[in-house]
């Protein structure tokens, strides 16, 4: 059983404070620093990429967990925010990443408590098994907002 895997990206300076990144999985895009750090708006930044890595990884792990826990997932949307600390010596680090997922699942009224319990376990497993969440030294905080729709209800977004 292989115990390691590798992933890659290639970056190239484009001049001024711009770069171009080619991801191992295919996408390519320009990037810069954020405007508050002598960079430019409208493009990927390392700061956004960091928060995005956590947010996307936890979401994908949650989707997998929800399938394994046999949840009838209606929607998942998550706002993620990283907090940067600037130390006295001007070094910087992300001390905290907060994820605020809004999760909607469908359930029979009679199974509501059991579904809620399974959903919480799926959320816990998503964080536990998230590669990126496991790889960062920032504190990861999940503030989940959960809604349960009755099984028979028509979902507005599906009408």
């Amino acid at each position, binding site marked *: *059983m292989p115990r390691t895997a590798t992933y890659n990206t290639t970056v190239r300076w484009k001049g001024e404070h711009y770069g171009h990144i080619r991801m191992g999985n295919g996408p390519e895009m320009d990037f810069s620093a954020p405007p508050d750090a002598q960079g430019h708006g409208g493009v990927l930044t390392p700061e956004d990429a960091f928060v995005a890595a956590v947010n996307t990884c936890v979401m994908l792990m949650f989707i*997998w967990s929800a399938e*394994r*826990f*046999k949840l009838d997932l209606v929607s998942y949307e998550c706002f993620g925010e990283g907090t940067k600390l600037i130390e006295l010596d001007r070094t910087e680090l992300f001390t905290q990443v907060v994820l605020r997922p809004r999760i909607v699942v469908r359930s029979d009224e009679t199974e509501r408590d059991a579904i809620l*319990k*399974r959903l919480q376990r799926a959320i*816990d*497993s998503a964080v536990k*098994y998230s590669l990126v969440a496991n790889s960062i030294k920032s504190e990861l905080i999940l503030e989940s907002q959960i809604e349960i729709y009755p099984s028979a209800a028509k979902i507005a977004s599906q009408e």
Partner: protein
Amino acid sequence: MLRMGMSDFSQQRNGDIAFATLAPAGTLLEVGDEIGSIETVKVNMSLPSPVKGIIVEVNSQLQESPELINQEPYGKGWLVVLKPENLAQDLGRLLAAEAYCNLAKQQAEAEMKS
């Protein structure tokens, strides 16, 4: 009577358990027959019986709380109670706790090195 469950090594190796499905009380199991199966966040796994016998009790708590297998594999996370039929013979083919523990340790160390 034998109270059977997953080993701590096995439950740790296979991840958070989402569902445990067990054969009902009264089921006659030959060696290797399925006691039940578990579905974890990572894998689906069949649980073969190490001995021949009849299931006389099933841990009904696992229906609602399969995570007990992860939390207390040697306590509240037990699977079934079995009335053995050829215990002495079956035990002769099994490892004692210390030998199993050494084997698990060797397997874990081998995986960490590979």
